[in-house]
């Protein structure tokens, strides 16, 4: 089988989605690790971001791959979605009873996450890299109008991350099936790790706007 044939078949596209999806989930874990420096304090967080900046072109290469993964994940997803829509004829009495809603809504939650990513890049990423205007990184995140200084940004962030978790709830289980991990001796380890990625990591991300956007102002 040629690589073109592999990557353009329905199963091949799914494999591509599974691999890129899992790599992005791993990136999320790394991203959260950095974000949690916010709780350590202003200096720790600023120092961490400065360290990343010192890596220079390595970060640019990593960013290139992240965009490539997001792009190919979304591209395959859209192509499969179109194929699936074409394949189905409507049954007026069609019962959704046996199709879990996390699976049914994966394309929708994925689209919202994509919109979120676009705003995330155009605000945090752009500001951090090109438009700091003398503010500290910590200030941009916790106080500025593109960060959690704005309740609207905080609320959108919380909703988007919650949907991302829901997307991953189906996505990670689905990737296990697509990569053939289900039914092997690694299945139970994989299932246990899945909960970290779809529940605990998104919860970690959500804790940041909840704390800096709301709780810290109330207390």
């Amino acid at each position, binding site marked *: 089988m040629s690589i073109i044939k592999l990557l353009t078949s329905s*199963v091949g596209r799914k494999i591509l989605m599974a691999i890129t999806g899992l790599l992005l989930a791993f990136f999320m874990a790394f991203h959260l690790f950095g974000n949690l420096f916010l709780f350590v304090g202003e200096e720790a967080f600023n120092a961490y971001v400065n360290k990343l900046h010192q890596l220079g072109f390595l970060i640019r290469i990593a960013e290139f791959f992240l965009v490539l993964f997001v792009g190919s994940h979304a591209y395959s997803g859209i192509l499969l979605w179109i194929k699936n*829509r074409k394949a189905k004829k409507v*049954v007026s009495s069609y019962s*959704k009873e046996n199709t879990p809603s996390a699976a049914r809504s994966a394309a929708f939650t994925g689209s919202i996450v994509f919109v979120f990513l676009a705003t995330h890049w155009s605000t945090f990423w752009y500001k951090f890299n090109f438009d700091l205007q003398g503010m500290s990184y910590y200030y941009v995140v916790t106080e500025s109008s593109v960060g959690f200084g704005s309740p609207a940004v905080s609320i959108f962030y919380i909703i988007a991350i919650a949907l991302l978790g829901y997307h991953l709830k189906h996505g990670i289980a689905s990737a296990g099936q697509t990569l053939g991990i289900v039914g092997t001796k690694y299945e139970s380890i994989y299932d246990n790790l899945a909960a970290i990625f779809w529940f605990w990591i998104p919860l970690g991300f959500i804790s940041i706007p909840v704390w800096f956007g709301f709780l810290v102002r109330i207390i």
Partner: protein
Amino acid sequence: MNVNLKIWRQGSDSDKGTLKAYRLENIDPNISFLEMLDILNIKLVKEKKDPVAFDHDCREGICGSCGFMINGRPHGPQKATTVCQLHMRAFNNEDDILLEPFRAESFPVIKDLSVDRKSFDRIISSGGYVSTNTGEAPEANSISIEKEYADEAFLSSACIGCGACVAACKNSSAMLFTSAKVSHLSLLPQGQKEGKDRVAKMVATMDEEGFGSCTNTGACSAECPKEIGQINIARLNQEYISSSLSGFLKKKDG
């Protein structure tokens, strides 16, 4: 018991179908669902009306001929049961029962509740076979098979190819069917010779036939009258990955 039926009537795939209402009274709750439709058809013929077309053959739940949507679920409300094995006692007196054909672009409607599932046959003929010598039947014990594998292969082979998985799937994917056939053959020593090519060919045919892709919702297994498990799809994926990896290593020769 009395039932109020609403049945999809459609002359052919190009026709626009409609739902028509029929009422049957004094039905014995212990007759099968298809016998109830026989009673309806006898009545329709006597009234010189067009009887309802539906597929059926063995009526023992093993041939895979029957199947349509009952209240939005393939083969009706009872778990692990084909339509022919479903009885009227699964319903209540005065129930509304909605019958529609299995719907998918790859299953064109022949008439009413009967759909053309030749796309399944084409998937099978593209790879669902084993090479064997003709002549006398070989000695059964010459190939030993571990019990675990034999049992797993048997579970996969229970697929009757009725198409309920496609009808249950929100994407009209034929992955459960295809994976059951791939698993059944690849688990057994006789099927391993063509193993690598089989999965590639069958997936290619499945895609060509216009079935959707699998999004791992599990609706197919939940509705399957033979309870074919999701493990088959994982196995197909494993086979597919190893098939494509071995393809990269293989040298091109002519």
